[in-house]
């Protein structure tokens, strides 16, 4: 008998058993809500998680579980499959991408689970309701803000714009881009002199902007498709003492000390556009779905963005918890 192996095996099995032996799910919770989040690592997504946890914490009869797919479609499909086995009273999905998640969400619907699709659409309406925010409207608002600020600076719509784009091929990026260009193409005097792709990341934006600053002696507006990229561009300009020559605008307008609203308060960004977290609406609709079987939600709710400038930033900063 190999005693050394047996003793080690027993010890290892005991240790591995520990997580399994922990207490079972408390039976007191009446409702089980499962939330499949596509990527906890993004600040916008982390804010969604925090807000949802906070809102459901106020409901003592609800147990909320959040799964993180780490920006991987296969992982998210696997997580939703597991949720389907658990038969939650409500399934909320923030899909990582459109096509890959469509089929599995259809299976959740087929299993009789109410499904709320959050913020990002899928290719077929495999959901009870879809709660979205309007990225195209944000793009248009950003375009209009650029026109207005150039008007203010030069007395007429002219000037040079730099655009820092998010991850290509993602809907938010495409619509924030298209909306702005729809507005800007009406003004011949406004030129987008440089477009760079920074994949939503502050560090990438800073690097791309350093190159752009070498290439472009004159820049009036930098439009980042999210706040961190706008801040990254600001940092690059700050290094060269050129940040006063131009304004920086971003998108998302998250609250909290690291969010974009604080950057407007601090004067780093001239403006940001509040992109709704969609979570408060999802919790509201979800609660109704669980408590009232006769309730039929709209197929889609579109939440509107909001312009945040120095005028209302302090007020927004106090209002937004996440």
């Amino acid at each position: 008998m190999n005693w050394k192996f047996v003793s080690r095996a027993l010890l290892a099995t005991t240790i591995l058993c520990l997580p399994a032996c922990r207490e079972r799910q408390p039976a007191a919770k009446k409702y089980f809500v499962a939330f499949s989040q596509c990527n906890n690592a993004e600040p916008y997504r982390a804010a969604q998680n925090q807000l949802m946890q906070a809102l459901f914490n106020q409901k003592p009869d609800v147990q909320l579980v959040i799964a993180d797919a780490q920006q991987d479609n296969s992982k998210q499909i696997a997580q939703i499959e597991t949720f389907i086995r658990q038969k939650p009273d409500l399934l909320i999905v923030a899909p990582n991408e459109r096509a890959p998640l469509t089929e599995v969400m259809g299976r959740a619907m087929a299993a009789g689970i109410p499904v709320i699709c959050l913020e990002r659409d899928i290719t077929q309406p495999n959901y009870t309701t879809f709660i979205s925010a309007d990225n195209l409207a944000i793009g248009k608002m950003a375009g209009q803000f650029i026109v207005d600020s150039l008007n203010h600076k030069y007395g007429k719509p002219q000037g040079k714009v730099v655009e820092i784009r998010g991850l290509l091929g993602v809907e938010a990026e495409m619509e924030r881009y298209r909306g702005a260009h729809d507005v800007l193409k009406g003004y011949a005097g406004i030129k987008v002199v440089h477009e760079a792709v920074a994949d939503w990341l502050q560090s990438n934006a800073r690097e791309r902007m350093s190159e752009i600053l070498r290439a472009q002696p004159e820049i009036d507006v930098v439009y980042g498709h999210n706040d961190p990229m706008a801040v990254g561009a600001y940092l690059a300009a700050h290094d060269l003492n050129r940040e006063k020559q131009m304004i920086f605008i971003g998108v998302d307008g998250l609250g909290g000390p690291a969010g974009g609203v604080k950057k407007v308060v601090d004067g780093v960004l001239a403006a940001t556009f509040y992109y709704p977290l969609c979570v408060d609406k999802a919790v509201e609709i979800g609660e109704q779905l669980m408590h009232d079987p006769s309730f039929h939600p709209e197929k889609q709710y579109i939440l509107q963005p909001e312009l945040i400038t120095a005028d209302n930033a302090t007020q927004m900063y106090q209002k937004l918890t996440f």
Partner: protein
Amino acid sequence: MTDPVPETLNQPAITSPTWYSDLLLRRGPLYSRLKSVLGLLAVLLIALLASPHSPRGGLIFLESGNITDILRQVSEIGIISLGMTFVILTGGIDLSVGTVLAFASSVVALVLTRLDLNLPPPVAIAMAMAAALVGGALVGLGNGVMIARWRIQPFIVTLATMIGMRGLARWLTSNTNIDIGFGADLASIFAGALSTKIVVIGSYALLSIALGTLLSKTVFGRYVRAVGDNEKAAKYAGLPITRTKILVYSMTGLLAGYSGILHAAQNHQGNPNTGVAYELEAIAAVVIGGTSLMGGSGSVGGTVVGTLIMGVLTNILRLNNVDNNLEMIAKAAIIVAAVWLQQAGKESA
């Protein structure tokens, strides 16, 4: 493999005792395989004890739908880890499999959606799959040639390939995903046919059996072990080391390509950015299955067991809604525990 066994191979004095005793005594591999099976049984026991109950009263873990979910979820990594077993047995490593998977998924989706193939659907789909498979195999061939002929270290070669293939996949697709719909077009037919559980799990099962047989019953399999066990001895014994290594890396590329095809079908998408860290998951499965990173000893059956251990563990933690971060910690513990147990066996053997 039809190669005749060289005379020298039958002389035990030249090669080290590990594989030779495996062949003669049959005790070694059986014993170590038994150990990894014991590990799987332990994880299964934990799963049974910890499984939540369904509203109807049964264990959710044991529902046939859940079991096939697990098998389907592990299949992509599982198929890659079969090839990885051979690579690691030769004493090498292949870091490029994740990006080869992304590349193959992009190629198959590109061919199906962008090329106007005026062919009957089965032929067109076969062509698209062939393109992805050939692509994967060529990458593997390149790895093999650089490692075996140019004698660059496998870690460095495949690290370079990993980076390069990510770039190539992104360049081919302009860094966008190639979505596959749900209609009646060619790509949709492909995704519908190849994403079914029977195809995915069936592929994994058949490939496991085929490659298990290749490793344990053929001369090629013995070469693979001999090269990893003691390359110098194998060289003096006149074994075709270069050819063996090139074949092993090509086969791994081919398998990663096939995984990429399944990935594209299951996700309805060719994605140049997918497959991140898949090589590490595959290596973990191989190591948990008892294959030594030093090369020479290990088995395909062990790797399958290792893959299943990770799959069952993930499933049971998720069924219990264990926090994602704790899940990663538990997996880390499993990897270390598995290897520690294997060593306990070896020290006293």
